């Protein structure tokens, strides 16, 4: 029931908004549907916390600590982004960048996107996981090109084709997985159910699964934005409307990583070596290093934070690749705090670029003077994402680096240099944007700062005093990932 509500609400919302999405109160409806989805997610999370892993609908859906935590995160960020998008999109309409038809498309696609991600997270069938990942991409392609500028169209095209090719590799990996599973579980739909596969993973053919994992990693890795498959990501983030940048960075990348992790559990069980982990560590470290050096070369603020997303996704991939209780715990924590912080940053950046009329950082100056809330929001968000101590990002990065120091000390120089480079590049730019003198007048309206500070407070709490139940939860999820 709870699950049906969770998946049904955004779908119903999508249908309604497809009709209603351009009229008055459409943005409020969008918020409302996202809120109801969040309520269902919380109720589901509480239930899973109390009663442990459970299957729904005869095994078609499956919830355990790992995915219910991501469901909660997705619903939360989905809700706060809807909150943020209400004033933001209204101003975009007022600026004449959107017409009613596009606004309708935006609202409907937003709900479809949330539904597709929730389906990807809750399904037990690895094939459906693939289908819904592709669905999430398709739902956002037309959103990236929403403004119809040449740059936006190019970005959307890149997004469509690169992610399409990537996801095709993942489909091939899924075919191979089914091939291995069919020998053990027999033909039919059950052979792709994750719970069934997990039960027999030790009997799956290792050579096939090795090959399958390579394809799956490349495929879903394109979606995660791992270097060298990342080139769609900065463009899509920079050219789409800012709420979409926020959910792409905050949610879609996580869900893609989730798909890799679910498969990694199976592959680890089958081949009994660290191959999958080593591959992930390699891709992750490469992403961290390359992205951090590219951050400094950006002049567009959204592109800069998009590269920062690549860096952080690389960090998570690296952490999950290392394995072990602490690293996986840190990876999950990093997933959470990165989602919250990065979407908060995009919220403030959205308002700032709207005010300045440009996404170029040289054109954005003196946010503190324009609106103190905006200035502080961006400053604190940036400090959080850069891993300045009291925030949760510091905790997770600290755990990742210390674990790496123990087990893979060769990676330490790369990690530290990359973190340092990224820090210098981002901090220098943001400082000027926040504190420099500006001639622009004060913001005439109150920006939607509630989501920003909500996220930042959550990140702060996670960094200073993580509630005991949450720590238990993370540990359970880490245990499910084989730590």
């Amino acid at each position, binding site marked *: 029931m709870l699950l049906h509500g969770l998946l049904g609400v955004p779908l119903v919302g999508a249908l309604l908004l497809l009709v209603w999405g351009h009229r008055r109160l459409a943005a409020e409806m969008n918020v409302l549907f996202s809120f109801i989805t969040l309520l269902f997610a919380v109720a589901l999370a509480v239930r899973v916390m109390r009663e442990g892993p459970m299957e729904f609908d005869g095994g078609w859906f499956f919830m355990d600590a790992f995915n219910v935590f991501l469901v909660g995160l997705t619903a939360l960020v989905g809700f706060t982004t809807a909150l943020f998008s209400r004033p933001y999109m209204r101003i975009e309409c007022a600026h004449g960048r959107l017409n009613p038809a596009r606004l309708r498309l935006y609202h409907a696609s937003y709900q479809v996107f949330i539904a597709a991600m929730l389906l990807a997270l809750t399904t037990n*069938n690895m*094939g*459906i996981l*693939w*289908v*819904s990942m*592709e*669905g999430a991409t*398709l739902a956002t*392609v*037309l959103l990236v*090109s929403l403004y*119809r*500028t*040449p*740059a936006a*169209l*190019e970005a*959307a*095209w890149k997004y*469509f*084709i690169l992610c*399409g*090719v990537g996801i*095709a590799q993942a*489909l*091939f990996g*899924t*075919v*191979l997985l*089914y*091939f291995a599973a*069919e*020998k053990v579980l027999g*033909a*039919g*739909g059950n*052979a*792709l159910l994750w719970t069934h596969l997990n039960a027999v993973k030790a009997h799956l*053919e290792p*050579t*096939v699964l090795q*090959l399958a994992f390579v394809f799956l990693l490349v495929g879903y890795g394109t979606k995660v934005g791992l270097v060298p498959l990342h080139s769609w990501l900065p463009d899509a983030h920079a050219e789409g409307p800012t709420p979409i940048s926020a959910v792409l960075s905050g949610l879609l990348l996580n869900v893609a990583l989730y798909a890799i992790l679910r498969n990694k559990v199976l592959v680890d069980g089958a081949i009994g070596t660290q191959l999958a982990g080593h591959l992930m560590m390699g891709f992750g470290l490469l992403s961290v290093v390359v992205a951090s050096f590219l951050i400094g070369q950006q002049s567009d603020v959204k592109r800069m934070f998009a590269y920062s997303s690549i860096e952080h996704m690389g960090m998570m991939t690296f952490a999950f690749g290392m394995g072990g209780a602490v690293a996986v715990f840190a990876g999950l924590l990093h997933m959470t705090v990165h989602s919250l912080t990065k979407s908060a940053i995009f919220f403030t950046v959205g308002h700032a670029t709207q005010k300045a009329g440009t996404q170029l950082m040289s054109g954005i100056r003196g946010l503190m003077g324009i609106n103190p809330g905006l200035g502080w929001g961006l400053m604190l968000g940036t400090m959080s994402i850069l891993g300045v101590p009291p925030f949760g990002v510091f905790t997770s990065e600290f755990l990742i680096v210390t674990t790496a120091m123990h087990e893979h000390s060769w990676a330490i120089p790369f990690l530290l240099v990359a973190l340092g480079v990224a820090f210098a590049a981002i901090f220098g730019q943001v400082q000027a944007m926040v504190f420099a003198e500006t001639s622009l007048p004060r913001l005439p309206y109150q920006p939607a700062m509630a989501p920003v500070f909500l996220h930042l407070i959550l990140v702060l709490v996670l960094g200073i005093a993580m509630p005991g139940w949450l720590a238990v939860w993370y540990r359970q999820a880490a245990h499910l990932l084989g730590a």
Partner: protein
Amino acid sequence: MISTGASGMISGWYLQIVNLLAALLLLISFAMLAQRRVVGLISLFAWQGAALAVSTAIVAVFTAQWHLLYSVALTLLLKVVIIPWFFYRLVRKLGMSRDVEPLLNHSLIMLTGIVLVIFAFNLALPISQMAGTVMRSTLGIAMACVLLSFLMMITRTKALPQVIGFMAMENGIFFAATSATYGMPLVVELGVALDVLVGVFVLGIFFFQIRETFESMDLRQMEKRKEH
């Protein structure tokens, strides 16, 4: 590698036809790699879908894997009728029917293609030996088709050929699923078909947007924009 008798192929005649169709699929993949005209590419794509559907249907009937007939119907409907028809219409509406794309380095592309085929055959060898299907040996061809479509996408600069390459890749994956495991579970196949359909639809909208903005379907125009 070389078998004992001269008649290494001892299997039933229907398998021989499936093998012939598989070889034809590979040939079509190469033809797509070399085809310069957009309209020609669309026809080749339709033929590829038809060959795929026929070979799958033969396997379905002779091995009594009746559920495969659903995917045959899906393939026929989507990849032989709807999508090619849609693409033809698109090409006509956008006035691209005479578009000819210059292909640089024809022979280099072909040689790369051969190398990819060898690679795919070797990659598939250990897996197909494990498979329990009658047409397991065609897995290598399926993999080769996937890689060749990938190569085609890389070598093209126009939007529509890239998409056709993407769809052809989907065909190759579908063929791989059939030859290794008699197809994927039905739910998954339906889902994939839905995604393909929605994807094509999204593309249709998208093409008109590109056309409006760039007045050409050449992706290099987008690249040029960057240089300014």
